[in-house]
């Protein structure tokens, strides 16, 4: 072996060892978290975290983490929701807003497995028992459509352990390592520099977040602006809407069979309200069409699209410019409408045709 090869081999060993250490660090949560404070940084919104263009470092309200969900056994209503139910940027989270408006304790559960029939529900001892299912538009087909997560059975303990190991060992690798390599104190400034340069020279955002509007400044989630079932340009055929509505109706009927009321709240994507900032193509009214289909099937649904569209026309900021979620005004208006629907008894009166 020549001298340069010997040197090269030593370097290869060194790089290999460093790479192995980095991998191990990425897989060790306490160390990885300490090294990547930006992973959980919400100081400018989740889209800014994804794409740190300095021109978009706009003021952003702090997260209010004071609210604690009551136990389901002590709640009249259970709100099963995604991040829209959980965020609290300058306002209490949705379940807290609902508790105030409804005058009843509202518990919160994450919609990681959004089929209410597999969850702990408000007990029969409560005076009213309501299930509110919230889901953002971009996840409806994937989570609640045919074959979605809601229709899957809960895994057994052994299988769950195996799946967890699989996730740990394989599937989450890329996310862990990407966080470690791109969101640490050393590389974050480089990422900011590149993002800002790309924006200023090419007018582009980054993977995960796209810039479509400078005046007013607005970032959009990549997947919301694409052609996949999560995106604005997806072809929501009548069959897609019917299948989705049939699934949600099944869930609603199951809840009603157990003697509970059911309210469904599809939250429009940010792009569905601000679509004119990204394209000339009109919104295909996916959510309003789904709402109409569900109402015709007797499901209690809250349609936020007309209200949010009207608020935006009136100059109200419904969504944060550098975050995917709603503002304080948007969250409060959503809570008003949901409370109104439940307290007016729309969930109790509908006939779902359940024998």
């Amino acid at each position, binding site marked *: 072996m020549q001298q340069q090869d010997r040197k090269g081999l030593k370097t290869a060993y060194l790089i*290999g060892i460093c790479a192995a250490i980095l991998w191990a660090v990425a897989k060790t949560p306490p160390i990885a978290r300490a090294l990547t404070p930006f992973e959980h940084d919400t100081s400018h919104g989740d889209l800014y975290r994804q794409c740190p263009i300095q021109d978009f470092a706009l003021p952003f309200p702090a997260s209010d983490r004071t609210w604690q969900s009551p136990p389901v056994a002590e709640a009249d209503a259970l709100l099963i929701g995604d991040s829209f139910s959980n965020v609290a940027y300058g306002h209490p989270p949705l379940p807290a807003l609902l508790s105030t408006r409804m005058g009843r304790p509202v518990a919160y559960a994450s919609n990681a497995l959004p089929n209410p029939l597999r969850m702990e529900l408000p007990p029969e001892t409560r005076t009213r028992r309501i299930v509110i299912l919230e889901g953002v538009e971009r996840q409806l087909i994937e989570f609640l459509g045919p074959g979605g997560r809601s229709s899957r059975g809960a895994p057994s303990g052994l299988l769950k352990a195996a799946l967890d190991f699989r996730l740990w060992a394989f599937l989450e690798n890329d996310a862990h390592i990407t966080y470690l390599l791109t969101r640490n104190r050393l590389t974050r400034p480089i990422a900011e520099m590149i993002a800002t340069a790309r924006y200023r020279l090419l*007018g582009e955002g980054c993977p995960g977040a796209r810039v479509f509007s400078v005046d007013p400044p607005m970032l959009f989630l990549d997947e919301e602006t694409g052609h996949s079932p999560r995106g604005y340009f997806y072809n929501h055929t009548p069959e897609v809407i019917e299948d989705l509505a049939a699934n949600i109706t099944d869930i609603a009927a199951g809840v009603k069979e157990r003697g509970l009321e059911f309210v469904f709240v599809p939250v429009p994507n940010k792009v569905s309200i601000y679509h004119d900032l990204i394209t000339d193509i009109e919104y295909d009214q996916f959510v309003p069409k789904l709402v109409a289909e569900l109402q015709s099937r007797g499901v209690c649904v809250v349609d936020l699209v007309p209200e949010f569209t009207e608020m935006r026309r009136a100059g109200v900021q419904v969504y944060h410019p550098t975050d995917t979620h709603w503002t304080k005004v948007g969250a409060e208006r959503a809570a008003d409408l949901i409370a109104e629907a439940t307290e007016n008894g729309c969930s109790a009166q509908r006939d779902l045709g359940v024998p």
Partner: protein
Amino acid sequence: MLFNSFQFLLFLPVTLALYFATPHRWRWVPLLIASFYFYMCWRPEYVVLILFSAGVDYIVAILLERTEAKAARRGLLLASLVSNLGLLFFFKYYDFFINSLTAVGSAFSYHPTLPALSLLLPLGISFYTFQALSYTIDVYRRERAAEHHAGYFMLYLMYFPQLVAGPIERSTRLLPQLRAHHTFSADNIKSGLRLVVWGLFIKMAVADRLAPVVDAIYNQPEAWSAGTLVMGTIFFAFQIYCDFGGYSLIAIGCARMFGVELMRNFNHPYLSTNIIDFWRRWHISLSTWFRDYVYMPLGGNTGPRRRYLTNVLIVFLISGLWHGASWTFVIWGAFHGTWSILSRITRDARARIVGEQLGWAPGWFLTLYRTAFTFAMVCLGWIFFRAPTFADASAVYRGIFTGQAGTGQSLPFDTRTILVNWLLVGVVLAWDFAGTGKLRFDVVQRAPVALRYAGALVLLLMFMMFANFGGHNFIYFQF
């Protein structure tokens, strides 16, 4: 695991260090473990399919070696063909078959009761199945001995650089290289790295930038003008070239670092001067596979002309179907098959006409004309390849050939984005031109040091500015 992921950035040096730190006799072990890990990062359960294929072919090959009776040998080969192609059919073509049967049946009031399964296509199944088949067929033909070492045989099927999207290697080339004693070579690392870097550049900074524009255009072909549709089609031509060509370069570069030389898969295909030339330069490992295991057994170009032209058409139809379980791919194959046949039939007449009508033209002009014509025709074929349905493809053709004005809506992309995309297409084309007739990296190596560093810096800046770090899949993973 994706080549264009941060995970791979750590995986490669760890594997390389482990490989060279292990004594030669046992080097197949870290490489095989790494290959399993590489594949299982996607869907661990689907590794069972490769294990099954490998098990069948390993046993069949050893039995073939020990068997003399012709009938028994044929039976063994058939067992291998049925098991390998059966898996491929079940996972890749079952739904296509059922849907086609339903469509045809409903025309005759026949409604088959078999349901579509909507199975997830196992990653790389078309590639490793073909690699497995070539091994068994070679042993059957007595062109090579059976591999008795199960570890090396498994590694031949699972070698991570080329596992999921080729190049489809032959056992006669790859197995001896996997067994050979490779000493660490700094030159191999450097030249391998150059290939990896260029492959990543054309994948992440070209293909992945072109992809969203192509998607937007092909998603609504009726909405755009003829010019936009042409642009979308040209962008797709470069997207698929840079995507698949990029993957192949990374695969070749990675393998070279381990001392293994994989076959070249692309040879600047868009500089081809006719369709036959194109297929000698595009996805070479697949073209040569079809030549050796389908075209030649069918009779090749021997026998009556009609027979050999039919063989050409059959190969292209199968090639189309190999690419995807959809009639659009079959039509794409038929398009290339028909064009190849016409090209062969009219070769003499065309040469005569060119001689008579364009005798005055300088050679470079004729080459340019032929190259442009071939590229335009290849692009016309790509429309069927890219469009999700026959109706969409028809809409694109209609839009282009009727000079469609579109609805007047603007593409949801900044003008600068489109201009940068054209610039990058130009860079790829210029790079191909520069490399014509020689290994392109030799050109780089011979340049003065200052120029090389300046070039590397420009490439790095372009990569930082233009690359899409979102970890997009490679198009050929779906095949």
